[in-house]
């Protein structure tokens, strides 16, 4: 075993650090060192996307990189989606539109959708389908996941509008 190295990251807004083997995969670091088990592992060839998290604002499949490569970075996992005591509009959308069944792909789907809406707040159905095409789901047939992202997109637009109106009123 090679000498352990210190990895410091900001995860869901909190500074975390741990000594790890240099070859430790980021997904194992998240799941086992940090005990955030919402991020899942569904394959060994980086096809399924269940391990998707955001690193410095961009989606990564956390099974395809080492924890040491994330050193100094900022990570967002499914556990960091809640907005205080409220569900994120995406989480709400997945529930309202029946966008999940077994729940195993859901965290990865949520993170990919989160990045998609961040870059493209009003995606078309085709854009959503392309945006989540790095994530496999065996239960839903994707249709209700598309619906969930559309739900969130509309909710977030509404919230933005309300915020703007509030500012104008000030």
């Amino acid at each position, binding site marked *: 075993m090679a000498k352990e190295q210190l990895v410091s990251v900001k995860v869901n807004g909190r500074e975390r650090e741990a000594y790890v083997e240099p070859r430790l995969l980021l997904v194992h670091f998240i799941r086992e060192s940090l005990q955030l088990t919402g991020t899942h592992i569904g394959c*060994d060839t980086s096809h*399924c996307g269940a391990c998707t998290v955001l690193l410095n604002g961009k989606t990564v499949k956390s099974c395809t990189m080492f924890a040491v490569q994330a050193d100094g970075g900022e990570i967002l996992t499914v556990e960091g989606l809640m907005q205080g005591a409220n569900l994120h509009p995406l989480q709400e959308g997945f529930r309202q539109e*029946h966008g999940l069944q077994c*729940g195993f792909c859901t965290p990865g789907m949520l993170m990919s959708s989160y990045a998609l809406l961040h870059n493209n707040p009003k995606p078309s159905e085709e854009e959503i389908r392309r945006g989540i095409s790095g994530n496999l789901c065996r239960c839903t047939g994707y249709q209700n996941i598309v619906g969930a992202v559309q739900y969130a997109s509309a909710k977030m637009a509404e919230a933005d509008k309300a915020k703007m109106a509030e500012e104008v009123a000030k």
Partner: protein
Amino acid sequence: MIHKTSPEIGGMGHPIKRKEDLRFIQGKGNYVDDVKLPGMVYGQMVRSPYAHARLKSINAEKAKKLPGVLAVITGEDLAKANLAWMPTLSHDKQMVLATGKVLFQSQEVAFVVAEDRYTAADAAELVEVEYEELPVLVDPHKALEPGAPLLREDREQKDNHIFHWEVGDRQATEQVFQKAPVKTSVHAFFPRCHPAPLETCGCVADFSRATGRLTIYMTSQAPHAHRTVFALVGGIPENNIRVISPDIGGGFGNKVPVYPGYVCAIVASLTLGVPVKWIETRSENLQSTGFARDYHMTAEIAADRDGKMQALRVKTLADHGAFNAAAQPTKFPAGLFSICTGSYEYPTAFCEVDGVYTNKAPGGIAYRCSFRVTEAAYLIERAVDVLALDLKMDPAELRRKNFIPPEKFPYKSSLGWTYDSGSYEPAMNIALEKIGYKELRKEQEEKRKKGELMGIGISSFTEIVGAGPAHSFDILGIKMFDSCEIRIHPTGKAMARMGTKSQGQGHETTYAQIVAQELGIPAADVTIEEGDTDTAPYGLGTYASRSTPTSGAATAVAARKIRDKAKKIAAYLLECNENDLEWEPGKFFVKGSPSTAKTIQEIAFAAYTNIPPGLEAGLEAVDYYDPPNLTFPFGTYVCVVDIDKGTGEVKVRRFIAVDDCGNIINPMIVEGQIHGGLTEGLAIAFMQQIDYDESGNIQGGSFQDYLLPTAVETPHWETDKTCTPSPHHPFGAKGVGESPNVGSPAAFVNAVVDALSHLGVKHIDMPITPWKVWNVLKEKGVA
């Protein structure tokens, strides 16, 4: 008629949001790999690179010397405890770890245990195994030839034949065929595929030396049955085994069998006295755990010139791989394949199946399917289309002419099943109308003139699910009943437990709705728990669309037992005669005086605080439900495809699914099940295959080459329904999870063949890849 409850109660028919979602969308599910126990260590399999080889020696010295390695277990070690082999669910046995020889690539050869995952994987690489290669059999036809290499030397029978099974009247069928004016046949291979739930299989085995108890957290669709298997095979008293099936990341039949990894983790925990986690990788999952299908089928139909079917004859060669580990009821070696007469009235039929061994992974599991029903539905729906081509008849008309008419239900099929209820034509009519069938046929004619390729495929399937009546159905002798226990707490809230186990089907919601329907307690106030054998009543688990037909029925019956007692309590509280009371969901009231009433919550409180003389305290019931018959969901699916002549690529333009699963508990969940099943059907028709080369090397052993559809390849699904309740089920439901996967492959393939039929194409085997289509086009001179 089902009494419609208010949305607040949320009984049958309400599309209420799922209770289980809240933890999943927050990343707070608890799957097996999330279980972390103090002192837990990790197991890793060493697997065979060869498909058939003599095992000369295993040298684990280097592995054992690696710091952190705790044990290396081999087949010889297991043999000392009489555990080198274990029974399968199909009268066969299977090696846990190889002794003597290996019979398929990736077979389990040794189990390494180490302090962490990475060390275990390193150590597995250091185990030196010496093999001597043997001739490999991958073609089941060749496996039956005289002089074929003998695969299973452990058996008394010295050939590769496993079983012959037949049903129906061979002679009468032969006679009809001799005289029939029209005979048609199709050879259809249903390729080997794998359910590939997104979560792989795994477990944490935790044996406590202090208490003598063994707790196994495992990816199990049938925790109670697995507990009994472990007790019988391992000799551990069953009261000292607790199986916990936590959240399961999809099953689709993959998590029904007992796999060597579970057994090895248990042995390791018993040996080391610490918890042992074993989680297979995706590649291990695809390469070694239960495959599905691999049926080489021939169907022949005898018919009149006007298309009236007279007889069906089916002959099938079933490739079971190295061990017959098919997960199915004991008396049915080919599962419920004899549903192959489908939705049609066949006066006479005969069906035979032969099972053989090959050098492939063991299995034959029911992949989103009630035991070989998918193979049967695909075959008959394919054969009917070929008959239509031979007769130059419209495939919809041919079906219409031969459907079992609604007045003949309950219908006794010539292969011995009694269909509970059905009304096939309305479902087909809706599907054809919605898709615009007539217009599409016109469009097709126009397109053909222009040399463009489009096709319309119909599949009017009938399923057989909900195993099953105890007189015929058992697994390892255990009858296939299922169960429910309901407890009403003093404050009127309820807890219910079942012998089944959800893997994403939404049981926590739908079972709560059944309780809500029957007792009027809001579904929100009913907690459902499954998967812990210490607390849930015994049951055979969730597969074969059996949860609603069995445990769902048990839930209704248990709730009705509670209602009977509640009525006695209400009569006591209202100081009236029981016979003067009437029920509406949520309360008993005095006939003619609706305001003189006691709610179920008031009654529950009284059951603990103001107990009527002569009655036991409490408000609980258990029911073990033995279904009187199976249920027979059905539907018609229509698919429209366009084919690119340049590339051979098939694009699904539209797909409409009209399903009839009887009375519906939660329409949102039913629709979700249909979307998911159709997507798996699409995958089977166009993408998924576990193939082998001549040396027995797996093609399709990882997600790199076992293709699953993403959101991009998956079309938009359109759904609709008819409702023909099951006459024998307590609330008329039939089960739905598998219908779309059973019914859709034929719709896709029929559509592709329909697009090419004018070129003389009658059949193409799945998976229909662009390469395959392009070759057909090239051969026909149109590419």
